[in-house]
């Protein structure tokens, strides 16, 4: 069906509305000398939109005058499903939200339910959760950086280097939780299985070798003049607009706002680890790329500290119940610093085994709302790079 609002060019809002909305000054749409505007629909089947996401782009020559994001193609009714299954039943579905980092999704959901039911978590489980979360952050940032350079036009070389390293981490997830990406590993009150010393040894060996990979990766890319030209000054996001739009994660820190939930909330046992939070200055695509690289280096530090002083003991709280788990009526909001930003679960319980309301605060969805402001005045090639730097996963955007 043709969306009436897009179809007829005359239905464009007055340029004055657009002008106040964003910094780019937009020429009147129909003046004679400049010719008409070209409307191009990029997606949903487009090689570089990271899944089924569509951008209806109005071009004046090469410059974007209007960009309307259209998503919802991957909507699977995740939240209504959450209301019809038990609390445990929703856990495997959280793997399918942001399918690149299932461990952090599980942890956020488990944290929310533990807050709701006041469930204590043993010490070793906290350490295991931190280790798995930081490993997921490395995996996600490697994927992002790889795909970003694929959008920039390298023929898969950085992507394949990043995936070579990611495979090693994914294999460790598989040997622990049984599945590479759909781990379903956290439970309310701890983890499902106790990692063996050999597994922890393999993780520390892999983590110690990781900075060497990062150095080689930065040597390939960070100084590259074409990369500097293509990403510096492209897609700038002002700190004020970022805060107003509720942006979180590396995108927010790239714009200069040093807000990291691991430091702000201090959930789990993060206060025990010393790590730094990198901040950008310009909020452009290059800063967002460097945020991920520097965050990977910080995650390696956290992992090394956690692996060094992980205690022995059980990973599952004995009083935790798997079946007919009925938390007392009330509500809770558990959030963690996922690789893409603040991923939070808001639960309302009415005492029955199914939650009354099950709401997911997905970072990709919120970070995507400012895509038009960053793309106005840029060219088509830039819009693809800006979308790549926002790091969206459609499973999380559409839920």
């Amino acid at each position, binding site marked *: 069906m043709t969306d009436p609002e897009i179809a007829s060019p005359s239905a464009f809002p007055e340029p004055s509305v657009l002008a106040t909305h964003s910094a*780019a000054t937009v*020429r009147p749409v129909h003046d004679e000398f400049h*010719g008409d505007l070209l409307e191009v629909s990029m997606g949903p089947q487009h090689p570089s939109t990271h899944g089924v996401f569509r951008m209806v782009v109005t071009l004046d020559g090469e410059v974007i005058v209007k960009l309307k994001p259209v998503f919802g193609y991957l909507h699977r009714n995740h939240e209504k499903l959450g209301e019809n299954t038990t609390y445990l039943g929703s856990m495997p579905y959280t793997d399918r939200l942001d399918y690149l980092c299932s461990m952090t999704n599980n942890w956020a959901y488990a944290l929310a339910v533990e807050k709701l039911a006041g469930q204590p978590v043993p010490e070793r489980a906290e350490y295991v959760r931190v280790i798995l979360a930081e490993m997921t952050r490395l995996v996600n940032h490697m994927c992002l950086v790889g795909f970003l350079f694929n959008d920039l036009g390298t023929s898969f070389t950085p992507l394949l280097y990043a995936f070579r390293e990611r495979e090693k981490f994914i294999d460790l997830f598989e040997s622990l939780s049984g599945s590479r990406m759909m781990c379903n590993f956290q439970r309310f009150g701890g983890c499902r299985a106790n990692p063996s010393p050999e597994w922890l040894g393999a993780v520390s060996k892999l983590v110690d070798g990781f900075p060497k990979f990062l150095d080689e990766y930065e040597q390939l890319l960070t100084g590259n003049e074409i990369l500097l*030209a293509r990403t510096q000054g*492209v897609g700038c996001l002002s700190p004020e607009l970022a805060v107003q739009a509720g942006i979180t994660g590396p995108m927010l820190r790239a714009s200069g706002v040093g807000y990291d939930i691991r430091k702000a909330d201090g959930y789990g046992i993060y206060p025990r680890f010393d790590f730094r939070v990198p901040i950008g200055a310009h909020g452009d695509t290059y800063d967002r790329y460097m945020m991920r690289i520097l965050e990977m280096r910080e995650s390696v530090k956290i992992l090394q500290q956690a692996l060094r002083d992980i205690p022995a003991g059980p990973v599952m709280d004995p009083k935790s119940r798997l079946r007919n788990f009925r938390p007392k009526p009330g509500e809770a909001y558990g959030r963690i610093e996922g690789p893409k930003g603040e991923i939070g679960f808001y639960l309302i319980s009415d005492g029955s085994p199914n939650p009354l309301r099950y709401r997911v605060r997905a970072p990709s969805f919120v970070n995507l709302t400012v895509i038009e402001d960053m793309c106005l*005045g840029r060219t088509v090639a830039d819009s693809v790079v800006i979308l790549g730097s926002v790091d969206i996963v459609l499973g999380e955007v559409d839920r």
Partner: protein
Amino acid sequence: MTAALILIALLILGSTAVAMSLRNLIHSALLLVLSWMGIAAFYLWAGAEFVAFAQVLVYAGAVSMIVLFAVLLTRRSRADLSIAPASLRRAVAGVLAGGATAGVLTLAVLRTNLQIAPSAAPTVTVQQLGLELIGPQVASVLVVGVILTVALLGAVVLAASDRNDGKEDAP
């Protein structure tokens, strides 16, 4: 050899004639380029390789692009141009103009005494051409140079005036 000559002449005339009659502007522009290629073939037949390749390089390479871009970018205004219904007055004006130019051309051709050159023209090597250009003809080369730079600067000014009312494009 004359058969090839006639063939090329027919090619040039044919393509320009068809180009005039076609509705589709792009097709006529491309046929125009074909006629330029025909002229380059003429130069080759006359043994002036340098001029032939220069013709192909300049016309088929660059001027054809300008023509096609012009046709492409003014596509919009063509729609508003309403062609007046075929009236007798326009037909008469057309025939008159055509007749006048044809008359002038045939007069010029008849008036000049074209001797048939006894033997093929001496092949001029590129080096001689170069020396000739830099030697006695150096003034004309410099004048042409100045004209081209002025044209280039004009284009830059035109484009610049178009750009500064749009958003300043960051490097």
